[in-house]
């Protein structure tokens, strides 16, 4: 079912949806597309798709998913992002600046100017990786370690709640474990051991290890 009201004024429709990302069902899978414009009395929608480029979609012939991604970690280009919703009046629809907040809590000292200086250039994989925010696909612990140790990622989401990052401390080279927005301990990849500093989250980590059938030991740092 189309979420677009074709009887709505095209200007209002564009105001609500333009530059927002929603998911479109193509080949049995929902894939994110960026809404650009409404044409032919709102019956056709000009969208951008990561693989197909600019495409024209007949609004009523496809299945749309306007659900926003759940709160939590997901993997994206260069590392992992955390996404959460805003509770403001969301007159704009889909995933956009008004409805969602994406950030990297591992580096909350990162400033806009720093981001610009980093010059993280846009590339096609950015777009693809955003779909992970919906899908909840995460990298396993085994896959995460070489990515981090090889400096191919700064942080890796291994579940919606848990992420691993490189250590910001010079005296410790272990990987930092985050639970949601809180660093809670270390992962020693050589010994395959989790060292918990913030013991309030022991049960959460224990559950994660058990559910994923991991062999690593958990101990208090």
């Amino acid at each position, binding site marked *: 079912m189309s979420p677009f009201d074709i009887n709505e004024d095209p200007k209002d429709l564009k105001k609500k949806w333009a530059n927002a990302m929603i998911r479109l069902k193509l080949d049995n899978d929902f894939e994110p597309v960026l809404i650009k414009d409404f044409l032919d009395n709102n019956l056709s929608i000009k969208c951008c798709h990561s693989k197909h480029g600019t495409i024209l979609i007949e609004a009523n012939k496809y299945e749309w998913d306007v659900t926003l991604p759940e709160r939590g970690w997901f993997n994206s280009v260069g590392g992992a992002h955390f996404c959460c919703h805003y*509770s403001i009046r969301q007159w704009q629809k889909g995933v956009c600046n008004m409805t969602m907040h994406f950030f990297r*809590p591992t580096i909350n*000292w990162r400033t806009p100017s720093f981001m610009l200086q980093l010059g993280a250039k846009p590339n096609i994989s950015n777009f693809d990786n955003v779909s992970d925010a919906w899908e909840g696909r995460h990298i396993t612990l085994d896959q995460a370690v070489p990515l981090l140790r090889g400096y191919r990622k700064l942080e890796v989401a291994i579940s919606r709640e848990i992420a691993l990052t490189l250590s910001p401390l010079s005296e410790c080279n272990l990987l930092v474990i985050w639970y949601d*927005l809180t660093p809670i301990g270390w992962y020693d990849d050589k010994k395959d051991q989790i060292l918990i*500093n913030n013991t*309030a989250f022991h049960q959460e980590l224990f559950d994660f290890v058990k559910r994923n059938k991991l062999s690593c030991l958990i101990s208090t*740092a």
Partner: protein
Amino acid sequence: MLNFDSLADDPILHKDRVLFSPSIQPLFKKIATLLDIPWTSIYANDPLNPTLGIEIEAENIDPDASWEPLHGIWIQKEDGSLRKGGREYITIPLQFSALLKAFQLLATSIPEAKFTHRCSTHVHIDVRHMTRSQMVTFILLYALCEPLLFAFAGKFRRHNNFCVGIEYTNDLNEMLLTAHHGRIASDNLQKYAALNILPAYVSGQDVTRYGTFEFRHLFGTLNAITLMDWCSLILRLRMAAIEIDLSWLIQKTRYLNVDSSYSILLEKIFKDSLSIFWNYVSINDLPRLLEKHVSRVKQSVLHHEFSRKLSDTLPEENSQYLKGLKRMYPHAFKSKITLLPPDPLCVTSTEADLALLHYTWSSTLIETAPLAQEPTEDST
């Protein structure tokens, strides 16, 4: 993270007593007769028997119907978000015992009312007498029980943009800070949160200061049983916030995911009203529903030096993180980079990251995406 140790046990909110002229007494007495309550309980300011204010949005109302208050109990207002003659019906502040009659009167007054996805029911509950620590407790209890409240309100409301739950946002810390300081701690708090605490603190813009917390979860309805059940759950939550000691709750939360004593805590909060939830969730679902919320609460209230140090420290020279940054973004390190410490008031303050991510989507598509398929000529 907040420090609750120094929290003074003083009520911070207005204890305003509404003073009425004697001329209004006849109206109150008339209302009291209709609702079968003592007239002194209308607009009552009783800390142990708080008043509630209900807002019900309905559509399909006869456009020629009068805009006069219904029975002196329900005020009618226009609401721009509604269609087909939509109106919002708002009660005067009433104690729980008066609500059933009030709902029945409204239902008989607007039999043509229809409730669509645009309609909702908002319940304001009086928090004027609560101390700061009680209000912090109220918010924490709510944060723990939110999934149950959304189970009652239904899946559609859970994903609604006009009652966004703590489950999805980062608002919990800011709500706790606000309750802790007795004033709004962040511009991020907005009235469209499922639990809207702004009416207790601010007046202006889109919000009026009522001295209430507003629960926005429920769908539009005039089903008296649903409405009474919903109001009783909210009332129980408020009563529990007064009865339960904050430090006990924090300690309890620390081990709640370990001993899985969810149902014991819920019984303590909702008492005999707890059974209302069993129509919507199974007792076996409690761990799945609540454990993430318990963890969220722990993040907000349990202090830990390690967590603070790691999240606030700039990456040190020779640290793995800085090496990773230099390896991944070598061009950026050719010029001098200034790292600024995080804003202590804003734990997750990187608006720029969304801007960047969004920029990357748009730019990717505009500048670098190949125009591989153009199904029709129009698409060019």
